[in-house]
């Protein structure tokens, strides 16, 4: 029985296995450690300009005093506050505010998230700012059930 199982594997996977050898690989360092994938917040209060520095400090204060203590409430990655900071950095303050309110509306919508957003890790949905800047070249569409491991 076991022989049939292995032969079955052989015929199914002999092609798939050869694909790892399509690029020459070297000796790998065997590692026992496991990675956790817990993303840490960036509490910097510096920035390129005064406005950016203000934004960063306000965000850091919010994170330290409030966000760290009321738990993981945002189903998206990047989280809503993070999203707002990145949106203002990539475009400008008024546009960033509009993007944020649109994101907040989508956050309120608890239905049919699985059919719309790709997934990030086990618990989150992936929703980057680049989809909403109105610049078409930056939009890299990902279909709903794709899994993304890290940024």
């Amino acid at each position: 029985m076991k022989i049939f199982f292995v032969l079955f594997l052989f015929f199914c996977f002999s092609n798939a296995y050869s694909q790892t050898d399509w690029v020459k690989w070297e000796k790998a360092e065997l590692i026992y450690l496991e990675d956790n994938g817990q993303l840490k917040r960036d509490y910097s209060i510096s920035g390129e300009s005064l406005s950016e520095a203000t934004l960063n400090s306000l965000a850091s204060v919010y994170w330290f005093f409030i966000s760290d203590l009321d738990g993981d409430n945002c189903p998206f990655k990047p989280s809503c506050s993070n999203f707002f900071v990145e949106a203002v950095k990539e475009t400008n303050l008024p546009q960033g505010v509009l993007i944020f309110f649109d994101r907040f509306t989508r956050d309120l919508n608890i239905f049919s998230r699985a059919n719309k957003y790709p997934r990030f890790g086990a618990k989150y949905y992936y929703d980057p700012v680049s989809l909403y800047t109105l610049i078409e070249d930056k939009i890299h569409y990902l279909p709903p059930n794709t899994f993304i491991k890290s940024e």
Partner: protein
Amino acid sequence: MTKLTLIVLSVTSFVYAQTIDSNSSVLHRKENIIKFADHLFCEKDYLRSANEYLRIDEALRGDVIDFKIALSLSAIGDYSIAKNTFGQINESSAYYSLSKPEIMKIFFLEEEYSELRKYYSAHNNLSLLQSESPESKLYFVSYLKDNENIPSLQDFTRPFNLDEREEVNFLHQMKADPPSKSPITASILSALIPGAGKIYTGEISDGVIALITTGLFAFLAYDNFQADHNFRAWLFTGLAAMFYAGNIYGSYSSAQLYNARIKFEFNLRLDSFLKSKNYFIPPYEFCE
């Protein structure tokens, strides 16, 4: 006499056996390299088979081996070297005509669509586009990937055979006239009724929530103005205005996302069609 022959034979084979070292052993002779490389090729271990074939001296290779080397490199993704190797095949060889669609397939995978069409015109009479061949099919399919003016449906589908025609028809329609949604229309609809733009682009739940939220805050603002709580009323007005403006912006970008999704699904469908037809190249008989 027999004794002499025996002695000579045994001594020479003994001496021969001792002077062999592993590198030049019989397993690394040309015929055995080819046998092993053929086996690796049929196992799809392409990098190894290419490296084995390349160990054979260039002058001794012949067109079959050059063709297999180029096929292996093309499978791995070494596109420029594969193209060169295909190009080295002599025009008189039987493999020359087989190498032309492979070169066009490489241009396709490299996303060099105009180069692909230039290559075709350089090596073929353009009237041949009406006949059925892998090259003419790839020529037309390349129009589905880039942004040049696409030929008419008649010319486009002529080289395809009957079981391919339906899919090619569909793909041509989708490319020439994609069912996109206009962002401007979406934003205008949202300006008239909050949330209508999102419903237009297919995100019905988002649109309904936006309508409820804007309506709720507007109602709260009105209610507080009536009850003369001015600070709260202005606060709620501000929030309602922000949600309203955010929804208009969101409808515009939602239409953009809808169009991006159509493009993505079109490319996915086209790629899986091409893979299932193996880029219209008939299978080879190298492996039984």
